[in-house]
């Protein structure tokens, strides 16, 4: 049954305009690459289940934000309710890499009192010949901020799954250890329904059924 998942994580995807946020998400959720796409208006939504261990599924609710400056005030409102984030830059666009710092600052300013687990994503890695940002410097930046770094390509489907599942696993670990908690009025992490884990309700249902028989 599709509806069964352990947790729901809300992820936000940010980064400069045209770095390929929507394309990455579409590759991940729809399995295809859209050659042409309109710029995102405000925010768009996608979701997908990820199996982090056999039988353990997490539902990802992905908020795809607009990179355009004019929508920035809208995007700001969405940090608060996200538990994870993919911060994208385009490896063929140096400017988008330089703005990574700014994006992180903005996120930090608006996520209070919660926290977001970020992964730094160097996108469009299929265009290696046009590369303007080396792997080494991106790695260094990510380490400085305590993030993972991963290079992806939506067009050639490189590391797309990995980028999302690694982040999901990291968050799951933090939830498991109790470093991230489900909180009332916070949409970042929601608990789902899993019969194998929720023993109490399983027993209730089973005993009920026996009574009826």
């Amino acid at each position: 049954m599709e509806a069964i998942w352990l947790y729901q994580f809300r992820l936000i995807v940010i980064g400069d305009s045209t770095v390929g946020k929507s394309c990455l998400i579409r590759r991940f959720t729809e399995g295809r690459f859209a050659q042409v796409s309109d710029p995102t208006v405000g925010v768009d939504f996608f979701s997908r289940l990820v199996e982090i261990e056999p039988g353990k599924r997490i539902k990802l609710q992905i908020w795809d934000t607009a990179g355009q400056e004019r929508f920035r005030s809208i995007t700001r409102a969405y940090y608060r309710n996200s538990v994870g984030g993919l911060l994208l830059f385009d490896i063929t666009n140096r400017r988008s890499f330089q703005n990574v710092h700014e994006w992180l600052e903005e996120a930090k300013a608006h996520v209070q009192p919660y926290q977001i687990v970020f992964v730094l994503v160097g996108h469009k890695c299929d265009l290696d010949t046009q590369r303007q940002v080396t792997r080494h410097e991106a790695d260094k930046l990510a380490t400085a901020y305590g993030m993972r770094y991963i290079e992806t390509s939506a067009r050639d489907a490189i590391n797309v799954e990995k980028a999302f599942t690694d982040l999901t696993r990291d968050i799951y670990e933090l939830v498991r250890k109790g470093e991230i908690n489900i909180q009332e009025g916070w949409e970042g992490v929601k608990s789902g329904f899993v019969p194998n884990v929720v023993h109490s309700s399983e027993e209730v249902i089973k005993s009920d059924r026996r009574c009826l028989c």
Partner: protein
Amino acid sequence: MSGENENTMDNTSPQESPDGAEPTGLDSVEKVPVVSEPVAVTRKRPESKSNSVSMEEEEEKAPEKKDPEPSEPKSPSGWGSWGNWGKSLISTASATVATVGHGISTAIEKAESTLGVPSPVELSFRSNVEPTEDANASDSPAVPGGESSSPMAGALGFLSSISTAVQSTGKTVLTGGLDALEFIGKKTMDVIAEGDPGFKKTKGLMNRNSTLSQVLREAKEREEQRVGSAAETQTHGKAHYGLLFDEHQGLAHLEALELLSKESEAKVKSILSAQPGEKVVELKTELEPLKETFSLEEFDDDDEVEKGDEDFSQEIASLFASLQITVRPDKLTRARKAAYIWMTEVEAKGMEENAEEPETETSGKKKKATVEEIHDLAIHSLAELTACSMELFHKSATLILHGETQVPAVSRGKALSQMTITLCKELSLLSKKVTTLLTTTGALEKSDVLNPLITGVFLEASNSASYIQDAFQLLLPVLEISHIQSQT
């Protein structure tokens, strides 16, 4: 049974009321009952009882368990109590309450399945017959005495927890009874037009602790739990509106729209409070015509004829053109097209079957869509169309606030109001068409199989229309701030 049975809710005659408590006054009802199979008395469905009842409801019902045979269907007071129960539920329902209707529909379904209550058709007659009592009955949600009040209390507990979570305007979308749901759009529009010149309602929605999307989200989560437990015990794969609505990102778009609406409302307030007195009066007079565009006028859907794909797309497209925003309603028109494609297919298959060999059921059932399948497709289409509408309103709000074009807020308000009406009419048409399909396809089905499905479609169509109207109301503060900012 062929298409001559236009009024699908009439397929059961009240005279066939099975529970021995035949309401005699029903003869005065003008509707001509179409004779069909008798309504089965007992609606006990053990499988849904064990699976669809969530934990919390179990708890609520637990104390009543010692009562002898609460589901005794032949109890006359059960009939009477049901009447009151139905009314008090229905009278406290407003357009907004109806938005959690899948809760209500679940409750009704549950009540049907556990109490052996009369069919929805009878219920609708019942509440038509005694409209005068409404005012008194609606004041006290508690069912007066009687041994069968205990299961009601359980159901009521569940329902009142819903209705406290939502605003009650006192006017009702369901007063007319379930048969009136055929005129969903119209009725729902009445509510808005009568009780609410738009603004108050939105304010009410905002000031509540929980927003519409929160209420819906909670309802969806409950549904997920139910589906989860149902999956475990391998029961029917019935369509769940809330889950499907979420799957098409309807909840997310609604939540995002609420966020924009709240921010805009706060901005309007702070701007108004910063202005000198006479300027405030001036601004408020300016905003008056805008508010008026949000009091949806009553519309008549009697003359509605089915639109072709082209007509619908064009109508929506031209409304978007007058908004002057760069959003294309492609998803919506695609979803609508898909709905009409499956309906045409089901219709065509049904025809074939009838033409070939109407007698042999076994061979027929293989190809022909079952009533459950039609119901599921309908719920899916309703959820998808509503989710697409949420997306359109959300995108409209985004671009009104951050777009690059300047259009007078009043003209945008008018276009959006027209869009709301068009969408609601469309949903109403769709539900009518589906229920006709259900009646013709399910001619051989027992009415206790068919009626809950028909009720389900009508209720979800009504809910859909309410979501759309509520989403529309969320656009008012957005247009207000856009107007104020264009002046300065």
